[in-house]
């Protein structure tokens, strides 16, 4: 048993040593993501920043001289509302509509001439809001403000109808509680530091593919198998060496992006390291299994190189995807990148999409299955 362990360590040691000397792979695994994170993080920075919303321009025509019309005048000229809306008056309805249609204002609010009379009679009283199709959320803001006036008026009417005078108090309905976004949502650099790390960890599968090809498909492997080492010792040693290599590379990327790019990796580095280790195991297992099952390094490499961009895209690795489509949501869970990214984002930002241990548990289970299949196949390999 002691000999087994020494043999495993021996194979792992030389695997790590050789991987470190493989400059081409190191370049791909370290320089490539570092450059990619810089480019994407810088180029798409504005896309990830919360936007400041300026005042919404709205035109207002009040044709009602009654109490309700005056009440709306008062309402819309409150300071709180003025912080949100820039209310302008128009000479005519046509002129105002023209401005709104041309995009000069988000909406036109128009109160009918008989608004107070109709309200007093309990009939239908209208405040019209016109907006153009491009007004987007600004039109919603206007509608919500108008709705809040109408709700208040309706409540007051209801109280009067049961014989009580409404007791008006002034409430601060819009509280000034600014959202602190820094560190709570990822900036572009933070986002791509995670997604590109996960993508490059997946490319670590190439180490697994080559490692298995060398031991089970090429002549060097035959020579090693002619020695007293047992197949499982060779297999475990090689896998451990590869996992260690990929894991170290992930730590280098994390430390570099943390201290040089100031990417946010949160405060729980141990958990981040655990997730990276889980994903290193997964990518190694995937590469190994592909090589042993296809019995051809180039075919295995090709399949993996097709799968990785698909997995990365599904996980939103290139661009964040906020789709509410159920089918897409089901498909993206199949992407191992999604599982790893989710676990990392959850660790950093505390957003619950899938539990960290559920995500990593799935990765470990899949890795174990692939490794066992690889080992079983490797034991049957003969010249």
């Amino acid at each position, binding site marked *: 048993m002691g*000999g087994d362990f020494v*043999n495993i360590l*021996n194979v792992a040691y*030389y695997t790590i*040593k*050789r991987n470190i*000397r*493989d400059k081409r792979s190191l370049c791909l695994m370290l320089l490539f993501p570092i450059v990619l994170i810089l480019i994407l993080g810088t180029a798409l920075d504005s896309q990830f920043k919360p936007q400041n919303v300026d005042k919404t321009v709205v035109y207002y025509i009040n044709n009602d001289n009654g109490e309700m019309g005056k009440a709306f005048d008062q309402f819309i000229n409150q300071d709180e509302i003025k912080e949100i809306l820039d209310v302008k008056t128009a000479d005519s309805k046509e002129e105002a509509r023209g401005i709104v249609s041309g995009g000069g204002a988000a909406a036109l609010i128009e109160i009918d001439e008989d608004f107070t009379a109709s309200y007093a009679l309990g009939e239908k009283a209208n405040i019209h809001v016109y907006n153009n199709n491009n007004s987007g959320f600004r039109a919603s803001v206007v509608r919500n403000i108008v709705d809040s006036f109408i709700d208040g008026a309706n409540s007051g009417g209801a109280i009067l109808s049961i014989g009580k005078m409404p007791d008006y108090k002034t409430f601060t309905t819009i509280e000034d509680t600014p959202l602190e976004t820094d560190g709570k949502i990822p900036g572009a650099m933070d986002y791509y530091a995670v997604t590109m790390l996960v993508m490059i960890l997946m490319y670590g599968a190439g180490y697994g593919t080559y490692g298995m090809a060398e031991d089970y498909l*090429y*002549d*060097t492997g*035959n*020579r*090693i*198998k*002619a*020695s*007293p*080492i*047992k197949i499982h010792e060779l297999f475990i040693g090689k896998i451990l060496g590869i996992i260690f290599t990929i894991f170290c590379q992930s730590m280098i990327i994390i430390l570099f992006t943390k201290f040089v790019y100031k990417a946010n990796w949160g405060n729980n580095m141990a958990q981040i390291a655990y997730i990276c280790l889980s994903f290193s195991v997964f990518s190694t297992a995937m590469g190994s299994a592909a090589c042993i099952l296809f019995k051809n390094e180039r075919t295995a490499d090709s399949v993996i190189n097709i799968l990785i961009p698909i997995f990365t895209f599904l996980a939103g690795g290139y661009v964040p995807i906020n789709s509410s489509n159920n089918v897409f949501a089901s498909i993206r869970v199949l992407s191992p990148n999604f599982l790893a990214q989710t676990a990392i984002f959850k660790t950093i930002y505390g957003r619950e999409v899938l539990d960290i241990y559920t995500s990593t548990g799935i990765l470990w289970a899949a890795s174990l299955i692939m490794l066992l299949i690889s080992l079983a196949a490797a034991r049957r390999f*003969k*010249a």
Partner: protein
Amino acid sequence: MTKVIEVYSFYHCFYKLIFYIINKKGMIKMIVEIKSLIKRYKDYIAVDNVDISIKEGEIFGLLGPNGAGKTTTINAILGLTNIDSGDIKIFGRNMRDGESEIKKSIGIVPQEVSIFKDLTAEENIAFFGKLYGLRGKMLKDSIDEALNFTGLLGNKKEFPKAFSGGMKRRLNIACAIVHKPKLIIMDEPTVGIDPQSRNHILHSVQKLNEMGSTIIYTSHYMEEIEEICTDIMIMDHGRIIAHGNCDELKELISSEETIDVEISSVNYTIVDNIKSISGVRDCTLNDKKLKVISDKKSKNLSRIIETISNTDSEILSLNVEKPTLEGVFLTLTGRTLRD
């Protein structure tokens, strides 16, 4: 052709009988014993009912063209391929009865250079040394010995990518001998290298043998086999077609010898005189070049020389053509080794 095979079969049976008697008395230690080995790849029979016995201290040559079944036989000995039937014993033990122990005493020099290009010469040898259980000072000393033996001591910190083909082949050998194996299997170790490196390797093989290792040496270069091997087996299409030492194999095909003589002047009476010598089968003269074909057993070379000397012609050169293993292979199969 039929006669040759009959002679071979008789010789082979006789040889086996004598060998069996000696072996029974425990006088010869067998290193490898293969009985009725058959290996098929689907419908193709790579090794067809092969028996091999290799004695301790031999350089056993396995000669045959590409595809003869040499490497498959080697893989079977090493347990790297599943066999369809037969029995293989190494050091008197079956591989399944002590694979790890048996393998510790075997060194393999694969046909392809099987070293790691991203490890230095020293690290390559250390890696394989560790696989065979060497550690610490013993490992260090063994690495230096292997490097020294293969003439690579001065290159021990260099990476193989900077090596010539011959140096890579030598490193390939160094990795196989670091643990001082009792049995060294060399599968075509000189393919594609320069004559100087080839000579170095052949010399190394003989030295390793002198140091106590039994060697199995496969090649399709008959000159190499002829030069170093003490026991030779010729394979073709997965079957053994001849077995013996170099002289014995040549005896199989050669009942006559050819004598080429260059004379100073043309004299046709010489031809008639030589033809009258006992054992001479034919004699031709072509522009001062005399070709005499004679029965090998008649031992009449001195009489031929004397006959020529008795004329006014002088002998300018004389060459007795000896049969080669290439000739043996050609006679037995109708093909040359490189066909």
